[in-house]
């Protein structure tokens, strides 16, 4: 849960990027880090395998600055997407305040997306949390592959598969190009801060 220090007037908010393996979670963070590094002035920590797959998490902390007298610190995490790292994913989800679900829009990944979303719900349940009560957004990633002729799932199908009961905000994106990466992030931060408004007022 959001960590509020009433003495120092600091709020720490944890946002986790979740989704199937190789879907673009790390790429999102890498884009943010690369593009806005000078502005957010932070270092990104990655714990990867030799094959460049996330092993534990990627971590990017940064300050938004003062809002309503509070210094808001955002902590972005990604989880390892591969199925075998479920225990690790659960660990990283601990204390989460907001989630970005990065779905892989490639047609061949349809099943993986749904499996991963189900897995997210299971892991959230272990902390007595659920997607109906948690700020989250969907990102349908890899839209750039369309121009390469790779079959992608239509947004309507992705919405039907993943979002029909939640109606969470969604973005089509290309993490590798940066399209809608910042927009996704801004949205999840807004939603997450809104959810802890009581602490801020």
């Amino acid at each position, binding site marked *: 849960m959001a960590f509020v220090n009433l003495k120092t007037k600091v709020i720490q908010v944890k946002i986790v990027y979740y989704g199937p393996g190789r879907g673009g979670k790390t790429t999102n963070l890498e884009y943010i880090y690369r593009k*806005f590094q*000078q*502005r*957010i*002035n*932070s270092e990104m920590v990655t714990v990867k395998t030799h094959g460049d797959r996330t092993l534990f998490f990627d971590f990017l902390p940064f*300050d*938004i*600055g003062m*809002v*309503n007298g509070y210094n808001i610190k955002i902590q972005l995490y990604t989880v390892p997407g591969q199925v075998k790292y479920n225990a690790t994913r659960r660990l990283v989800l601990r204390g989460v305040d907001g989630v970005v679900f990065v779905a892989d829009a490639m047609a061949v990944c349809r099943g993986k997306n749904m499996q991963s979303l189900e897995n997210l719900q299971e892991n959230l349940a272990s902390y007595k949390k659920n997607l109906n009560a948690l700020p989250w957004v969907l990102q349908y990633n890899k839209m750039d592959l369309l121009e390469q002729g790779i079959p992608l799932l239509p947004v309507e199908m992705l919405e039907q598969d993943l979002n029909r009961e939640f109606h969470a905000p969604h973005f089509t994106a290309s993490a590798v190009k940066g399209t809608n990466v*910042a927009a996704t*992030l*801004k949205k999840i*931060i*807004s939603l997450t*801060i*809104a959810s802890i*408004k009581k602490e*801020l*007022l």
Partner: protein
Amino acid sequence: MSNTSKFETLSSELESRLDDLFREDAPPAASAAPARPATTPDNPLGELKKTVLSIDWEITPETIDSFQDHIRLLKEAFQRDKIISMFLQILGSLGQYIKTSRNNVHPSTFTVLNSVFARLEEIVTSPTMPAPARKKLLQAEMALYQDLRDKILKRRASAQPRPAGKAAVTAAAPAAPAPGAGAPPEALAQAIEELKVFIRSELKTLKEELGISARRT
């Protein structure tokens, strides 16, 4: 101002902050704090304790040598105290055994080492402890020490069926020699011989000085 309008102000402030952040320069960040060195209290066994703790964490020739050096120094310092001298003698033998056995050291050696040291520390830090209590502590540790010696001999007997001096060797099934690098059997046998000689002589001294007739098995 109502909560709703307060929140609206907050939201718009946040939105413009986010827009700025992901467009313009933002304020920089933090720093770290230095650490302070720890100090150790004065204690005659202080340096020895450090080496014992080191051995508990890591067994290297350096830690063992350091351990033995401190034992030597303490033996000189406490030469007039028979009980403490004997504790130090036991510790010294254990150190020597660990040094010569290296990778083949018996795992229980360290439990015994820690126990002997703990009792020694108790005695040294309680100068008003009555003599019978001190003797009792020493006897308990000597028993542990002999127990360890028996275990070592038993283990050696089952690994390599060869007579070790006067010790009885149980007939063991032919066993493959223990794999991996280790001290040569002769060094181990010598260390055990030294232990045996020491125990015999110290028990004799103990009996004479303390007037104890019963022998612990």
